[in-house]
């Protein structure tokens, strides 16, 4: 029931938002809706985390053997939590941002949330595909309408790129469907399909390419920096904090359980690509002048680590990856908020044009420094736990992957500190001369993130407990 509510609230709220023309009111409304989602989720986790709340099934397309089935297991729970946690913060931190025809904007944002939650919860192949696309379409409009000057071309590229991927996945899904004994799309019967190794080999790629584009894994990543750069920052937050998790999550819930043999066959390829991606993206991040692009590349690097860890097929790596789902979401969200604040105030994201903010906006700088340090996975921040476990898992898989991938730790320090220095340290210039510090509203939203960062960094136990079931499920498969 909780699962259903999670999807319904933003869905209805989003549709309703279309009819609230007044800016203030629609902002409040969507903020309230987001909070409602958060409330439901936290209630579910704290008091009602039991099977009949985690599962929901309803009739949908009997002819196709597809039902409206939702399942909230460890991995999806953590991501649902992330989603509902992120949205209020996004709305709060972009409270001051102005958007033309806000009711559409916020409506679409909420619809995106519905789509995302659907993806994280769907326990039926076709339903999953449905939400997979539905999450994309509002984003398409958000980016193309409210984005930067190159938005249209960039967005259509992003859309078609991901669309190709998902269509390939659809073909694979269809093929699987016809292999099921009871001609059903339900997760269980798909899991039970017996496939030969050859079948798994090519089906694996049909699915993986879709997910790899979404994550994105090197070399399918080129849409991502442009899109992040062009999209309005509020949307970029959704994209990089939540949407990339779709791909990772899909790997956990669909790819690995469906094609264990395929995974074992290609784990080296995937991990190899991911590790290359980590280094490659980190080196590129060092070259960027636009903060958004920098974060985009750094996020590619982090995603690379996660995708690698998902394929190492040992508990440490999986646990790390899953806790990192949450941590990365929170941290990168914090980054985007800071960027949003900077861009809104100075109208530029070029590091070369900024500088000396630390004198003018100490609060902002302190919060950024903390978030940035979480981004470089400093101990006692949330990211450290995840990265430690992931690297450990990677190490268990193959020492050299860990060694090479480890270089990204150093590189991340280099580019992150470079960013901090160029933006916040040094002397002010004409752009930043009369900068003002951030309002309490933004301060609180950042503070929430900082708190989350430390709480998870110091006491990650609950999260481990949450994702454990998924991890064991996956390890069972490989037994």
């Amino acid at each position, binding site marked *: 029931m909780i699962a259903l509510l999670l999807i319904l609230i933003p869905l209805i709220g989003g549709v309703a938002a279309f009819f609230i023309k007044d800016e203030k009111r629609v902002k409040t409304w969507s903020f309230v809706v987001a909070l409602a989602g958060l409330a439901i989720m936290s209630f579910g986790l704290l008091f009602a985390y039991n099977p009949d709340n985690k599962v929901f099934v309803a009739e949908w397309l009997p002819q196709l053997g597809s039902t409206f089935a939702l399942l909230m297991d460890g991995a999806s729970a953590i991501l649902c939590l992330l989603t509902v946690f992120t949205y209020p913060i996004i709305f709060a931190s972009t409270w001051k941002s102005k958007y033309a025809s806000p009711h559409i904007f916020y409506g679409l944002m909420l619809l995106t949330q519905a789509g995302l939650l659907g993806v994280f919860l769907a326990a039926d192949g076709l339903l999953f595909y449905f939400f997979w696309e539905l999450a994309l379409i509002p984003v398409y409009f958000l980016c193309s309408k409210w984005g930067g000057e190159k938005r249209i071309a960039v967005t259509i590229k992003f859309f078609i790129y991901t669309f190709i991927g998902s269509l390939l996945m*659809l073909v694979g899904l269809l093929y699987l469907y016809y292999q099921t004994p009871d001609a059903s799309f339900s997760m269980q019967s798909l899991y039970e399909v017996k496939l030969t190794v050859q079948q798994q080999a090519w089906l694996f790629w049909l699915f993986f390419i879709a997910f790899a584009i979404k994550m994105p894994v090197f070399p399918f990543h080129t849409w991502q920096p442009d899109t992040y750069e062009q999209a309005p920052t509020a949307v970029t937050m959704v994209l990089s904090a939540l949407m990339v998790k779709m791909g990772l999550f899909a790997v956990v819930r669909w790819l690995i359980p469906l094609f264990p043999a395929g995974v074992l066959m290609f784990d080296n390829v995937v991990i190899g690509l991911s590790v290359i991606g980590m280094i490659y993206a980190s080196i590129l991040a060092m070259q960027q002048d636009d903060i958004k692009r920098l974060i985009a590349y750094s996020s590619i690097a982090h995603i690379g680590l996660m995708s690698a860890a998902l394929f190492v097929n040992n508990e440490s790596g999986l646990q790390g990856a899953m806790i990192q789902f949450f941590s990365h979401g929170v941290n990168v969200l914090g980054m985007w908020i800071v960027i949003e604040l900077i861009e809104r105030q100075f109208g530029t994201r070029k590091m070369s044009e900024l500088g000396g903010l630390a004198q003018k906006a100490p609060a902002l700088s302190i919060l950024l420094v903390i978030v940035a340090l979480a981004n470089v996975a400093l101990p006692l921040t949330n990211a450290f736990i995840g990265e430690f476990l992931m690297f450990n898992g990677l190490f268990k898989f193959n020492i050299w992957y860990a060694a090479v991938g480890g270089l990204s730790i150093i590189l991340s320090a280099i580019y992150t500190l470079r960013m901090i220095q160029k933006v916040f340290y040094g002397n002010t210039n004409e752009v930043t001369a009369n900068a003002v510090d951030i309002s309490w509203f933004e301060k609180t939203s950042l503070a929430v993130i900082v708190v989350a960062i430390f709480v998870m960094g110091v006491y990650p136990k609950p999260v481990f407990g949450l994702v454990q079931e998924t991890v064991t499920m996956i390890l069972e498969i490989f037994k």
Partner: protein
Amino acid sequence: MNLILISALWGVVMMFSGLFIKNRSAAKTIAIVGALVLLVGNLFDLGGKMIISSNFNGMLLYDRFALLFLTVLVLALLIYFLLSGKDIAAVGNHPYEYFALIFFIMSGVGLVALFNNLLILFLGIEIISIPLYILTGADKRNLKSNEAALKYFLMGAFSTGIMLMGIAFLYGATGSFQVDRLNLLDGDNFRIFLIIGIVMIMIAMAFKVSAAPFHFWTPDVYDGAPTVFTSFMATIVKASVFIGFLNLFANGFGGMMDTWKPSIAIIVALTLFIGNVTAVYQQSVKRMLAYSSIAQAGFMLFAVFAINDMSKLGLLLYAAAYCLATIGIFAVLIKMKDYTIDGFNGLAKKEPLVALVLTICLFSLAGIPLTAGFFAKYFVLAAAVKTGTYLWLVIFAVLMAAVSVYYYFRVIQAMYFKEGNGQDIETTPVFKGLLVTVAALIILLGLFPSLLLNWLTLY
């Protein structure tokens, strides 16, 4: 049978009312009434209550699928009349005749859907084609319209020749024109006749559904013909030919798929490729839609390619989705002066509702989930996948679908994201209401295709 009779009769009615009623606008009303009557009659068909229930010793075959398909087409016709009836009357000096011709075509559609004898198929197709030549040329002063008509006529006649040659060879092989008897050969030594026959008929049908490499007439004719009639041709007529195609190959040649499956596969691939890739560069929306209709034909051909239970569902759903979306888009397009894509710039600001409906229609054509188009594509692809072979074709098809997104979205981009103040479209509330209904139907089918499909299994 009701449908064939009524439409023929109503055609006559229209003719004569044209003699007696001078008021042009009445034509639309009469036609709409006719469409309604047609619908009722067809529903009686579905219920098995016919004026003449004989199948003329096996010349017709009333199977539920075909009848339901006809229902969809008649509904499409009704919507078409409602949305564009005024524009039909406005094409030239003979409003009543145009409607009459359309009704005659509907009787041909009925024949093509229900035939069980090659003669009926032949006659049906001719009844569809000959009035279409006229309608194409209906805008007599317009050279483009003339040209389109002549091209269409010449090539159509040529394809008729091909088809007849095919039928002749089939007869030579089997000594019968009955579709269900085409499988039993009169001695195996005639096998070669059968093959020649199949190939030639396949080509003739491919021509009619504008599949590559026999599609060349389509862009020119669709572009040249008066836009209202383009809409009609591209939707109802094309769909009807498809069901003829499907029935013929399912009932007639189902037994010897291996002889024609490769060829159809190639046709599908070519059609998808040429249709989609050529559409990418078009500047005129009308012509782009012509190419897109080729591309869509490529998808519908999957139903013929993979003959199984799924393909019938698929074709049915596809026809519905495709007709709805295309009619909707054309209905708006007709009302515009400037057909170029730039002509759509900023339409969303001027006519938000119309823009929204157009977007939904385009989504449906592109096969985005939540619209009927998705399930349409889903079913036909599923049918192909179910055969277990030719998976490369399916993958190629989805890649092409991705290409199609590009050119469909160009219109959306123009409407929503490009600068410009959209050209003015004279729209009535009724018109808008109808558009919304179309959009609603598309979404509804996109959520619950069973609403339509259940009818196949119902009583």
